[in-house]
Protein backbone atom coordinates (compact mmCIF):
# COMPACT_ATOMS: atom_id res chain seq x y z
CA UNK A 1 0.00 0.00 0.00
CA UNK A 2 2.69 2.50 0.96
CA UNK A 3 5.37 0.76 -1.11
CA UNK A 4 5.58 3.52 -3.72
CA UNK A 5 5.09 6.28 -1.21
CA UNK A 6 7.44 9.21 -1.75
CA UNK A 7 8.10 11.11 1.46
CA UNK A 8 10.73 13.16 -0.35
CA UNK A 9 8.00 15.14 -2.10
CA UNK A 10 6.64 16.31 1.24
CA UNK A 11 10.07 17.18 2.63
CA UNK A 12 11.01 19.16 -0.47
CA UNK A 13 7.69 21.01 -0.41
CA UNK A 14 7.82 21.85 3.31
CA UNK A 15 9.17 25.41 2.97
CA UNK A 16 6.59 26.25 0.29
CA UNK A 17 3.77 24.60 2.24
CA UNK A 18 4.48 26.43 5.47
CA UNK A 19 6.02 29.78 4.44
CA UNK A 20 3.61 30.41 1.59
CA UNK A 21 0.60 28.30 2.47
CA UNK A 22 0.31 28.01 6.22
CA UNK A 23 1.29 31.63 6.84
CA UNK A 24 -1.56 32.71 4.56
CA UNK A 25 -3.97 30.36 6.34
CA UNK A 26 -2.91 31.53 9.81
CA UNK A 27 -2.97 35.22 8.83
CA UNK A 28 -6.42 34.87 7.27
CA UNK A 29 -7.74 32.93 10.28
CA UNK A 30 -6.39 35.36 12.87
CA UNK A 31 -7.45 38.55 11.10
CA UNK A 32 -10.88 37.14 10.18
CA UNK A 33 -11.48 35.98 13.73
CA UNK A 34 -10.57 39.42 15.14
CA UNK A 35 -12.54 41.29 12.49
CA UNK A 36 -15.46 38.92 12.78
CA UNK A 37 -15.46 39.28 16.54
CA UNK A 38 -15.51 43.09 16.44
CA UNK A 39 -18.08 43.30 13.68
CA UNK A 40 -20.07 40.44 15.21
CA UNK A 41 -20.19 42.15 18.61
CA UNK A 42 -21.48 45.29 16.91
CA UNK A 43 -24.22 43.24 15.24
CA UNK A 44 -25.11 41.58 18.55
CA UNK A 45 -25.38 45.00 20.22
CA UNK A 46 -27.56 46.22 17.36
CA UNK A 47 -29.80 43.20 17.81
CA UNK A 48 -30.12 43.71 21.55
CA UNK A 49 -30.58 47.48 21.36
CA UNK A 50 -34.07 48.79 22.00
CA UNK A 51 -34.29 50.19 18.48
CA UNK A 52 -36.58 47.92 16.46
CA UNK A 53 -35.34 48.79 12.96
CA UNK A 54 -31.71 48.38 13.96
CA UNK A 55 -32.47 45.00 15.52
CA UNK A 56 -34.35 43.86 12.47
CA UNK A 57 -31.54 44.84 10.09
CA UNK A 58 -29.02 42.94 12.22
CA UNK A 59 -31.33 39.91 12.40
CA UNK A 60 -31.82 39.88 8.64
CA UNK A 61 -28.07 40.10 8.06
CA UNK A 62 -27.39 37.15 10.36
CA UNK A 63 -30.17 34.99 8.89
CA UNK A 64 -29.12 35.85 5.36
CA UNK A 65 -25.46 34.98 5.87
CA UNK A 66 -26.29 31.80 7.70
CA UNK A 67 -28.57 30.46 4.98
CA UNK A 68 -25.92 30.65 2.26
CA UNK A 69 -23.11 28.17 1.63
CA UNK A 70 -19.70 29.66 2.35
CA UNK A 71 -18.48 28.73 -1.13
CA UNK A 72 -21.21 30.87 -2.71
CA UNK A 73 -20.40 33.78 -0.37
CA UNK A 74 -16.72 33.50 -1.35
CA UNK A 75 -17.69 33.78 -5.02
CA UNK A 76 -20.06 36.68 -4.27
CA UNK A 77 -17.42 38.79 -2.59
CA UNK A 78 -14.69 37.82 -5.04
CA UNK A 79 -16.71 39.39 -7.84
CA UNK A 80 -18.51 42.06 -5.81
CA UNK A 81 -15.63 43.67 -3.88
CA UNK A 82 -13.95 45.21 -6.97
CA UNK A 83 -17.25 46.92 -7.87
CA UNK A 84 -17.79 48.17 -4.33
CA UNK A 85 -14.23 49.52 -4.36
CA UNK A 86 -14.95 51.30 -7.61
CA UNK A 87 -18.16 52.74 -6.19
CA UNK A 88 -16.46 53.91 -2.99
CA UNK A 89 -13.47 55.53 -4.64
CA UNK A 90 -15.31 56.78 -7.72
CA UNK A 91 -12.79 55.13 -10.04
CA UNK A 92 -13.67 54.48 -13.65
CA UNK A 93 -12.95 50.73 -13.61
CA UNK A 94 -13.56 48.00 -11.02
CA UNK A 95 -10.67 47.99 -8.55
CA UNK A 96 -8.57 44.85 -8.25
CA UNK A 97 -8.12 44.14 -4.54
CA UNK A 98 -6.08 40.95 -4.63
CA UNK A 99 -6.70 37.51 -3.25
CA UNK A 100 -5.87 38.21 0.36
CA UNK A 101 -8.03 41.31 0.80
CA UNK A 102 -10.94 39.73 -1.02
CA UNK A 103 -10.89 36.56 1.09
CA UNK A 104 -10.33 38.54 4.29
CA UNK A 105 -13.40 40.72 3.64
CA UNK A 106 -15.43 37.60 2.81
CA UNK A 107 -14.51 35.79 6.00
CA UNK A 108 -14.98 38.83 8.26
CA UNK A 109 -18.46 39.45 6.86
CA UNK A 110 -19.39 35.76 6.94
CA UNK A 111 -17.99 34.91 10.36
CA UNK A 112 -19.49 38.06 11.91
CA UNK A 113 -22.90 36.41 11.55
CA UNK A 114 -21.74 33.40 13.58
CA UNK A 115 -19.72 35.38 16.12
CA UNK A 116 -22.65 37.75 16.68
CA UNK A 117 -24.89 34.87 17.75
CA UNK A 118 -22.25 33.69 20.22
CA UNK A 119 -21.79 37.20 21.63
CA UNK A 120 -25.55 37.66 21.84
CA UNK A 121 -25.85 34.51 23.93
CA UNK A 122 -22.93 35.76 26.03
CA UNK A 123 -24.50 39.15 26.67
CA UNK A 124 -27.83 37.53 27.50
CA UNK A 125 -26.10 35.24 29.99
CA UNK A 126 -25.18 38.27 32.16
CA UNK A 127 -27.69 38.72 34.97
CA UNK A 128 -29.99 41.75 34.79
CA UNK A 129 -28.65 43.12 38.06
CA UNK A 130 -25.29 43.91 36.47
CA UNK A 131 -26.38 46.57 33.96
CA UNK A 132 -28.88 47.86 36.52
CA UNK A 133 -26.07 48.30 39.06
CA UNK A 134 -23.87 49.96 36.45
CA UNK A 135 -26.73 52.32 35.67
CA UNK A 136 -27.16 53.12 39.33
CA UNK A 137 -23.45 53.99 39.50
CA UNK A 138 -24.14 56.58 36.82
CA UNK A 139 -22.42 54.83 33.90
CA UNK A 140 -23.72 55.61 30.45
CA UNK A 141 -24.98 52.84 28.13
CA UNK A 142 -21.66 52.75 26.29
CA UNK A 143 -19.71 52.60 29.55
CA UNK A 144 -21.96 49.85 30.92
CA UNK A 145 -21.30 47.76 27.84
CA UNK A 146 -17.61 48.57 27.69
CA UNK A 147 -16.71 48.07 31.37
CA UNK A 148 -19.34 45.72 32.78
CA UNK A 149 -21.25 43.59 30.28
CA UNK A 150 -18.90 42.89 27.36
CA UNK A 151 -15.82 41.78 29.35
CA UNK A 152 -17.91 39.24 31.23
CA UNK A 153 -19.79 38.11 28.13
CA UNK A 154 -16.52 37.73 26.29
CA UNK A 155 -15.04 35.72 29.11
CA UNK A 156 -18.03 33.40 29.45
CA UNK A 157 -18.07 32.77 25.73
CA UNK A 158 -14.31 32.37 25.26
CA UNK A 159 -14.37 28.58 24.78
CA UNK A 160 -17.19 28.83 22.22
CA UNK A 161 -15.41 31.69 20.44
CA UNK A 162 -12.24 29.61 20.15
CA UNK A 163 -14.22 26.60 18.95
CA UNK A 164 -15.75 28.80 16.25
CA UNK A 165 -12.24 29.99 15.36
CA UNK A 166 -11.15 26.35 14.90
CA UNK A 167 -14.09 25.90 12.52
CA UNK A 168 -12.98 29.09 10.77
CA UNK A 169 -9.43 27.76 10.49
CA UNK A 170 -10.78 24.67 8.73
CA UNK A 171 -13.15 26.70 6.57
CA UNK A 172 -10.39 28.94 5.21
CA UNK A 173 -9.38 25.91 3.11
CA UNK A 174 -12.39 26.77 0.93
CA UNK A 175 -10.48 29.67 -0.66
CA UNK A 176 -9.21 26.76 -2.77
CA UNK A 177 -12.11 27.57 -5.12
CA UNK A 178 -10.36 30.86 -5.98
CA UNK A 179 -7.03 29.05 -6.60
CA UNK A 180 -5.46 30.95 -3.71
CA UNK A 181 -2.28 29.52 -2.18
CA UNK A 182 -3.39 28.84 1.37
CA UNK A 183 -2.10 25.67 3.06
CA UNK A 184 -4.40 23.35 1.13
CA UNK A 185 -3.92 25.38 -2.04
CA UNK A 186 -0.13 25.00 -1.72
CA UNK A 187 -0.44 21.27 -1.06
CA UNK A 188 -2.73 20.85 -4.02
CA UNK A 189 -0.42 22.81 -6.35
CA UNK A 190 2.54 20.61 -5.42
CA UNK A 191 0.31 17.52 -5.68
CA UNK A 192 -0.71 18.36 -9.21
CA UNK A 193 2.74 19.49 -10.35
CA UNK A 194 4.47 16.34 -9.12
CA UNK A 195 1.57 13.92 -9.59
CA UNK A 196 1.72 13.04 -5.89
CA UNK A 197 -1.90 13.50 -4.80
CA UNK A 198 -1.86 10.74 -2.19
CA UNK A 199 1.16 12.00 -0.26
CA UNK A 200 0.23 15.68 -0.35
CA UNK A 201 -3.44 15.32 0.55
CA UNK A 202 -2.69 12.83 3.33
CA UNK A 203 -0.06 15.20 4.70
CA UNK A 204 -2.46 18.16 4.53
CA UNK A 205 -5.12 16.11 6.33
CA UNK A 206 -2.67 15.17 9.09
CA UNK A 207 -1.54 18.79 9.58
CA UNK A 208 -5.11 20.15 9.76
CA UNK A 209 -6.07 17.29 12.07
CA UNK A 210 -3.13 17.82 14.43
CA UNK A 211 -3.61 21.58 14.74
CA UNK A 212 -7.38 21.33 15.27
CA UNK A 213 -6.96 18.50 17.76
CA UNK A 214 -4.44 20.40 19.87
CA UNK A 215 -6.60 23.52 19.76
CA UNK A 216 -9.78 21.70 20.78
CA UNK A 217 -7.88 19.96 23.57
CA UNK A 218 -6.84 23.44 24.76
CA UNK A 219 -10.46 24.59 24.65
CA UNK A 220 -11.49 21.66 26.84
CA UNK A 221 -8.88 22.58 29.44
CA UNK A 222 -9.87 26.23 29.29
CA UNK A 223 -13.52 25.27 29.76
CA UNK A 224 -12.63 23.27 32.84
CA UNK A 225 -10.70 26.24 34.29
CA UNK A 226 -13.46 28.74 33.65
CA UNK A 227 -16.03 26.35 35.08
CA UNK A 228 -14.14 26.16 38.42
CA UNK A 229 -13.82 29.91 38.68
CA UNK A 230 -17.53 30.58 38.30
Amino acid sequence: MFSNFDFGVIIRALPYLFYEGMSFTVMLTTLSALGGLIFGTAIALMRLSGLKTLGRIAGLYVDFMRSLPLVLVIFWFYFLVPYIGQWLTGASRPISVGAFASSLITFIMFEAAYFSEIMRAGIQSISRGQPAAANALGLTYAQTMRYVVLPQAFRNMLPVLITQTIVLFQDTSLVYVLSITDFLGAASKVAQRDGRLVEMYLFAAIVYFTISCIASFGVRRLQARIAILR
Partner: protein
Amino acid sequence: MNYNWNWGIFFQPNPMGTGTYLDMLLSGLVLTLKTAALAWIIALITGSLVGVMRTLPSRGANWFGFAYVEFFRNMPLLVQLFLWFFVLPEILPRAAGLWLKQLPNAPFWTAAIGIGLFMSARVAIQLQAGIGSLPRGQRMAATALGLTTVQVYRYVLLPMAFRIILPPLTSEFLNTIKNTAVAITIGLLELTGEARSMQEFSFQVFEAFTAATLLYLLVNAVVVTAMRFLERWVAIPGYITGK
Protein backbone atom coordinates in the same frame (compact mmCIF):
# COMPACT_ATOMS: atom_id res chain seq x y z
CA MET B 1 -21.47 50.81 -11.41
CA ASN B 2 -20.80 50.18 -15.07
CA TYR B 3 -22.05 46.63 -15.13
CA ASN B 4 -24.37 45.41 -17.86
CA TRP B 5 -27.41 44.04 -16.08
CA ASN B 6 -29.38 41.55 -18.09
CA TRP B 7 -32.10 39.77 -16.18
CA GLY B 8 -33.41 38.21 -19.37
CA ILE B 9 -30.34 35.97 -19.44
CA PHE B 10 -32.18 33.20 -17.59
CA PHE B 11 -34.45 32.58 -20.57
CA GLN B 12 -31.67 32.40 -23.13
CA PRO B 13 -30.45 28.97 -24.24
CA ASN B 14 -27.34 27.73 -22.44
CA PRO B 15 -24.25 26.65 -24.42
CA MET B 16 -24.67 23.01 -23.34
CA GLY B 17 -27.88 22.73 -25.32
CA THR B 18 -29.84 21.55 -22.29
CA GLY B 19 -32.44 24.29 -22.42
CA THR B 20 -32.19 27.75 -20.90
CA TYR B 21 -29.80 29.04 -18.24
CA LEU B 22 -32.68 28.73 -15.79
CA ASP B 23 -32.93 25.00 -16.58
CA MET B 24 -29.22 24.75 -15.81
CA LEU B 25 -29.69 26.30 -12.36
CA LEU B 26 -32.73 24.18 -11.61
CA SER B 27 -30.89 20.97 -12.50
CA GLY B 28 -28.19 22.17 -10.07
CA LEU B 29 -30.83 22.68 -7.41
CA VAL B 30 -32.13 19.13 -7.94
CA LEU B 31 -28.61 17.75 -7.61
CA THR B 32 -28.07 19.80 -4.42
CA LEU B 33 -31.25 18.38 -2.92
CA LYS B 34 -30.41 14.81 -3.97
CA THR B 35 -26.89 15.00 -2.54
CA ALA B 36 -28.13 16.61 0.67
CA ALA B 37 -30.89 14.01 1.10
CA LEU B 38 -28.55 11.04 0.71
CA ALA B 39 -25.90 12.70 2.91
CA TRP B 40 -28.49 13.39 5.58
CA ILE B 41 -29.69 9.79 5.63
CA ILE B 42 -26.09 8.60 6.05
CA ALA B 43 -25.42 11.25 8.71
CA LEU B 44 -28.54 10.39 10.67
CA ILE B 45 -27.94 6.63 10.70
CA THR B 46 -24.19 6.60 11.41
CA GLY B 47 -24.44 9.65 13.67
CA SER B 48 -27.15 8.00 15.78
CA LEU B 49 -25.13 4.79 16.11
CA VAL B 50 -22.00 6.68 17.17
CA GLY B 51 -23.97 8.98 19.46
CA VAL B 52 -25.51 6.00 21.23
CA MET B 53 -22.09 4.35 21.52
CA ARG B 54 -20.81 7.41 23.35
CA THR B 55 -23.48 6.98 26.04
CA LEU B 56 -23.26 3.19 26.46
CA PRO B 57 -21.80 1.79 29.69
CA SER B 58 -19.12 0.02 27.63
CA ARG B 59 -15.64 1.59 27.74
CA GLY B 60 -14.69 0.32 24.29
CA ALA B 61 -17.81 1.77 22.68
CA ASN B 62 -17.16 5.13 24.36
CA TRP B 63 -13.62 5.18 23.10
CA PHE B 64 -14.68 4.30 19.56
CA GLY B 65 -17.32 7.04 19.60
CA PHE B 66 -14.79 9.57 20.85
CA ALA B 67 -12.21 8.65 18.21
CA TYR B 68 -14.83 8.69 15.44
CA VAL B 69 -16.09 12.15 16.32
CA GLU B 70 -12.58 13.61 16.71
CA PHE B 71 -11.50 12.13 13.38
CA PHE B 72 -14.34 13.63 11.39
CA ARG B 73 -14.51 16.91 13.26
CA ASN B 74 -10.88 17.97 13.08
CA MET B 75 -10.37 17.96 9.33
CA PRO B 76 -11.83 20.49 6.89
CA LEU B 77 -14.68 19.02 4.85
CA LEU B 78 -12.81 19.94 1.68
CA VAL B 79 -9.79 17.88 2.78
CA GLN B 80 -12.06 14.95 3.66
CA LEU B 81 -13.66 15.02 0.22
CA PHE B 82 -10.18 15.05 -1.36
CA LEU B 83 -9.22 12.06 0.78
CA TRP B 84 -12.24 10.06 -0.39
CA PHE B 85 -12.04 11.23 -3.98
CA PHE B 86 -8.31 11.30 -4.79
CA VAL B 87 -6.55 9.32 -2.07
CA LEU B 88 -8.82 6.37 -1.29
CA PRO B 89 -8.76 4.80 -4.80
CA GLU B 90 -4.95 4.94 -4.74
CA ILE B 91 -4.36 3.26 -1.40
CA LEU B 92 -6.93 0.51 -1.91
CA PRO B 93 -5.86 -2.75 -3.59
CA ARG B 94 -5.53 -2.17 -7.35
CA ALA B 95 -8.76 -3.85 -8.44
CA ALA B 96 -10.91 -2.08 -5.86
CA GLY B 97 -9.27 1.27 -6.63
CA LEU B 98 -9.86 0.83 -10.35
CA TRP B 99 -13.49 -0.06 -9.73
CA LEU B 100 -13.93 3.07 -7.59
CA LYS B 101 -12.38 5.30 -10.23
CA GLN B 102 -14.61 3.94 -12.96
CA LEU B 103 -17.80 4.30 -10.97
CA PRO B 104 -20.29 6.44 -12.90
CA ASN B 105 -21.32 9.62 -11.03
CA ALA B 106 -18.28 9.31 -8.77
CA PRO B 107 -18.45 12.97 -7.61
CA PHE B 108 -22.06 12.52 -6.54
CA TRP B 109 -21.42 9.37 -4.49
CA THR B 110 -18.21 10.76 -3.02
CA ALA B 111 -19.92 14.01 -2.05
CA ALA B 112 -22.96 12.33 -0.53
CA ILE B 113 -20.94 9.80 1.47
CA GLY B 114 -18.19 12.27 2.41
CA ILE B 115 -20.59 14.98 3.56
CA GLY B 116 -22.74 12.33 5.26
CA LEU B 117 -19.82 11.05 7.32
CA PHE B 118 -18.65 14.61 8.08
CA MET B 119 -22.11 15.54 9.35
CA SER B 120 -22.53 12.24 11.23
CA ALA B 121 -19.95 13.37 13.79
CA ARG B 122 -22.09 16.45 14.48
CA VAL B 123 -25.29 14.41 14.72
CA ALA B 124 -23.49 12.10 17.15
CA ILE B 125 -22.56 15.01 19.46
CA GLN B 126 -26.11 16.35 19.39
CA LEU B 127 -27.61 12.96 20.19
CA GLN B 128 -25.10 12.36 22.95
CA ALA B 129 -26.05 15.71 24.48
CA GLY B 130 -29.75 14.86 24.09
CA ILE B 131 -29.42 11.52 25.84
CA GLY B 132 -27.20 13.14 28.48
CA SER B 133 -29.84 15.80 29.17
CA LEU B 134 -32.46 13.20 30.15
CA PRO B 135 -32.95 12.67 33.88
CA ARG B 136 -30.94 9.69 35.19
CA GLY B 137 -34.15 8.22 36.56
CA GLN B 138 -35.46 7.43 33.09
CA ARG B 139 -32.70 4.92 32.36
CA MET B 140 -33.00 3.49 35.89
CA ALA B 141 -36.78 3.16 35.73
CA ALA B 142 -36.54 1.46 32.37
CA THR B 143 -33.94 -0.96 33.69
CA ALA B 144 -36.05 -1.59 36.80
CA LEU B 145 -38.96 -2.55 34.54
CA GLY B 146 -36.78 -5.35 33.23
CA LEU B 147 -35.96 -3.85 29.83
CA THR B 148 -32.70 -4.87 28.18
CA THR B 149 -30.20 -2.17 27.18
CA VAL B 150 -31.46 -2.29 23.59
CA GLN B 151 -35.04 -1.91 24.78
CA VAL B 152 -34.10 0.96 27.12
CA TYR B 153 -32.73 2.87 24.14
CA ARG B 154 -35.40 1.77 21.70
CA TYR B 155 -38.47 2.55 23.83
CA VAL B 156 -37.36 5.16 26.37
CA LEU B 157 -34.17 7.12 25.74
CA LEU B 158 -34.10 7.57 21.96
CA PRO B 159 -37.73 8.70 21.45
CA MET B 160 -37.17 11.34 24.15
CA ALA B 161 -33.68 12.39 23.04
CA PHE B 162 -34.57 12.77 19.36
CA ARG B 163 -37.50 15.03 20.18
CA ILE B 164 -35.36 17.20 22.44
CA ILE B 165 -32.62 17.66 19.83
CA LEU B 166 -34.95 18.32 16.92
CA PRO B 167 -34.13 22.08 16.73
CA PRO B 168 -30.33 21.60 16.58
CA LEU B 169 -30.86 18.73 14.13
CA THR B 170 -32.73 21.16 11.89
CA SER B 171 -29.70 23.43 11.76
CA GLU B 172 -27.47 20.45 11.06
CA PHE B 173 -29.77 19.50 8.19
CA LEU B 174 -29.51 23.04 6.81
CA ASN B 175 -25.72 22.80 7.20
CA THR B 176 -25.78 19.57 5.19
CA ILE B 177 -27.58 21.34 2.35
CA LYS B 178 -25.09 24.21 2.44
CA ASN B 179 -22.11 21.88 2.64
CA THR B 180 -23.03 20.26 -0.67
CA ALA B 181 -21.58 23.42 -2.25
CA VAL B 182 -18.10 22.22 -1.25
CA ALA B 183 -18.53 19.37 -3.75
CA ILE B 184 -17.93 21.91 -6.51
CA THR B 185 -14.23 21.16 -5.88
CA ILE B 186 -14.58 17.54 -6.99
CA GLY B 187 -16.58 18.51 -10.04
CA LEU B 188 -20.16 18.10 -8.85
CA LEU B 189 -22.36 20.59 -10.69
CA GLU B 190 -24.80 21.36 -7.90
CA LEU B 191 -26.50 24.74 -7.47
CA THR B 192 -23.35 26.76 -6.67
CA GLY B 193 -21.48 24.89 -9.40
CA GLU B 194 -24.15 25.64 -12.00
CA ALA B 195 -24.25 29.30 -10.96
CA ARG B 196 -20.48 29.42 -11.35
CA SER B 197 -20.55 27.85 -14.82
CA MET B 198 -23.42 30.12 -15.83
CA GLN B 199 -21.21 33.04 -14.82
CA GLU B 200 -18.31 31.65 -16.85
CA PHE B 201 -20.42 31.16 -19.98
CA SER B 202 -22.52 34.30 -19.88
CA PHE B 203 -20.37 36.77 -17.84
CA GLN B 204 -23.56 37.73 -15.97
CA VAL B 205 -21.95 37.25 -12.54
CA PHE B 206 -24.48 38.93 -10.32
CA GLU B 207 -27.62 37.58 -12.00
CA ALA B 208 -26.30 34.03 -11.70
CA PHE B 209 -25.34 34.38 -8.03
CA THR B 210 -28.53 36.25 -7.16
CA ALA B 211 -30.60 33.41 -8.60
CA ALA B 212 -28.58 30.80 -6.68
CA THR B 213 -28.90 32.87 -3.49
CA LEU B 214 -32.68 33.11 -3.86
CA LEU B 215 -32.93 29.37 -4.44
CA TYR B 216 -30.89 28.65 -1.30
CA LEU B 217 -33.08 31.03 0.72
CA LEU B 218 -36.18 29.31 -0.64
CA VAL B 219 -34.90 25.85 0.32
CA ASN B 220 -34.02 27.17 3.79
CA ALA B 221 -37.50 28.61 4.27
CA VAL B 222 -39.15 25.35 3.21
CA VAL B 223 -36.99 23.24 5.53
CA VAL B 224 -37.47 25.56 8.51
CA THR B 225 -41.25 25.62 8.06
CA ALA B 226 -41.49 21.86 7.64
CA MET B 227 -39.36 21.27 10.73
CA ARG B 228 -41.47 23.65 12.79
CA PHE B 229 -44.55 21.57 11.96
CA LEU B 230 -42.67 18.38 12.80
CA GLU B 231 -41.56 19.90 16.10
CA ARG B 232 -45.10 20.75 17.09
CA TRP B 233 -46.30 17.33 16.04
CA VAL B 234 -43.78 15.38 18.14
CA ALA B 235 -43.66 17.79 21.11
CA ILE B 236 -43.38 16.07 24.49
CA PRO B 237 -46.15 17.21 26.88
CA GLY B 238 -44.71 19.06 29.86
CA TYR B 239 -41.50 20.15 28.08
CA ILE B 240 -40.80 23.69 26.90
CA THR B 241 -40.71 23.38 23.14
CA GLY B 242 -39.75 26.40 21.12
CA LYS B 243 -40.78 29.82 22.27
